[in-house]
């Protein structure tokens, strides 16, 4: 049992970290508004209202940077907590929205909707639908003779993932090369470039609500990570709990995919990092993953928009950072994570 001091310390770090990163990242970017100016503008807006700052400054800070930072924080936190939830449901630390094929399914759904020039809402619904279908197929295929094992689950995830990637290619193949194809291609790469308040207001609430639900049931998700008989004998209604967690994770993933494309690695890497630091109890892993995931995506995105003159898709950065870190984790723990 922990001391009170370490509990307070742990909590304040998880809350302060995103705030500090936010304050740093709001001052980064083009248009010559450094930290000092950015924080001044922000303070003026908060204290004296919109009219107290120049229109151009307001637009840069609020419409461009703040919207993008909010999107990064929300998506990063959401993807990480979706990863933890899925890992508990499948009692498998190697599962994530990417490895289960949820992300590929959602990508196909979104690409399909984009092909028909649908609005964001339709893109979201379509992404969610195919995300859940992909997850259901993976789950069904992996269940052999009532039992389930890690290798079957990961393999069927890979199979379902590549199947839906093929569907995505098919969509790209038939898409109009002048207008729609570049759209789909760039969006699929995974970028927060398209962030604006309108899309955030549409896309963020499902992520926030589902993340909050997962946060609330965080202790109970531990029970689900045990074997089926054990979870049942601990009084859990497994069917409902599983369904709730899979649904929440799929909604989060699909909403992120429909707004910023496929951003990988966060759902796998962040939970592992948090387990390494805080242990395996989801009581701690879930809040920590939300905080770290948000910070991780924010930092990656800030680099991706400010590193070079043209923007680098953030998914490239998350993979460049994620792959080596994950490899290191695997090597250090001897695969025994």
């Amino acid at each position, binding site marked *: 049992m922990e001391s009170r001091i370490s509990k307070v310390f742990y909590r304040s770090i998880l809350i302060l970290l995103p705030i500090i990163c936010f304050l740093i990242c709001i001052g980064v970017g083009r248009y010559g508004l450094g930290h000092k100016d950015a924080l001044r503008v922000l303070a003026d807006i908060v204290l004296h209202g919109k009219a107290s700052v120049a229109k151009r400054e307001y637009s840069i800070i609020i419409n461009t940077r703040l919207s993008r930072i909010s999107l990064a924080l929300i998506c990063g936190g959401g993807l990480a907590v979706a990863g933890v939830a899925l890992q508990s449901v499948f009692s498998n630390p190697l599962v994530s929205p990417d490895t289960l094929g949820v992300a590929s399914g959602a990508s196909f759904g979104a690409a399909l909707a984009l092909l028909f020039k649908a609005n964001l809402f339709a893109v979201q619904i379509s992404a969610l639908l195919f995300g859940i279908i992909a997850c259901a197929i993976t789950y069904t295929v992996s269940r052999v003779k009532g039992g389930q094992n890690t290798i079957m689950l990961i393999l069927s995830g890979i199979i379902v993932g590549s199947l839906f990637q093929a569907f995505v290619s098919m969509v790209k193949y038939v898409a109009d090369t002048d207008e729609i194809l570049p759209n789909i291609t760039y969006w699929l790469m995974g970028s927060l470039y398209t962030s604006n308040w309108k899309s955030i207001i549409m896309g963020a609430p499902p992520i926030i609500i589902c993340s909050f639900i997962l946060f609330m049931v965080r202790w109970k998700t*531990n029970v689900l990570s045990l074997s089926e008989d*054990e979870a049942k004998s601990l009084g859990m209604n497994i069917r409902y709990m599983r369904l709730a967690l899979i649904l929440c994770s799929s909604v989060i993933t699909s909403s992120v995919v429909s707004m910023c494309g496929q951003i990988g690695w966060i759902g796998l890497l962040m939970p592992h990092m948090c387990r390494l630091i805080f*242990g395996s109890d989801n009581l701690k892993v879930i809040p920590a993953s939300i905080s770290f995931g948000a910070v991780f995506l924010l930092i990656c995105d800030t680099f991706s928009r400010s590193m070079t003159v043209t923007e680098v898709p953030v998914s490239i950065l998350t993979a460049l950072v994620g792959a080596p870190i994950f490899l290191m984790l695997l090597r250090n723990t001897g695969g025994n994570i």
Partner: protein
Amino acid sequence: MIFETVNASFSYKKNSAMLLKNINLNVESNEVLAILGPNGIGKTTLLKCMTGLLHWKEGFSSIDKRRVDEMSSKDFFSITAYVPQARNPAFAYKSEEFIMLGRSIHVGNFSKPGKKDYEKVNEVIELLALQKLVGKFINRLSGGELQMLLIARALCQEPSILILDEPESNLDFKNQLMILDSIRRLADKGMICIFNTHYPSHAFSIGDKAIMIGKNSQNIFGSVETVLTKKNIETVFGVNVDIAKNISGKKEYTTITALSIKN
């Protein structure tokens, strides 16, 4: 409290022959019931039926005359706790976090363990003398230690009936004794303990009653002495055995040695 199973039968598939047939047994507070039988005869299946994880096809189990199949799973599992066979867990919880999962039935879905739950965990850790495991990761523990944690987790449910699946298999002498002693002590405190085992001598050392399942869904139930006779063991297990009573200090104990395979 009395746990009964009345005329119960079970088969995995519809219309196929019953794997378990006409099981009749009863066990009261302060008693230990041992389940014996050869490999693959349905010992674990019997345990799972008794815990409601599988459902009897005929007959029923009851607790104080209340039918188990008419109880909500929450009600049932606040009376009964199931200790599964130890296996490597997917996630490396710390011992105390793992024991705490036993409180699940008392903690709401949108809630987390409170002060009372932490107190209960500490109480169980003290009861089973597991203090040296606190703070350790469960994937670093030995089989015996993990088995003790599973028992501790079950005790956190505050059950009146404890059902254990081969709790002492795969353990060395010392760990076997540790587990068996714990089971006996819990029964002496008023609990009903039910366990299945490969070792007839373990049934003798801590059991009050025994049920032995044999081929063709035969079963014999009664006190340990009446069930585990030389003749019964030889028939059910298909081996010739020697049963000997020994005295060590004040304690009398029974050894059973398998001599040869019966033709």
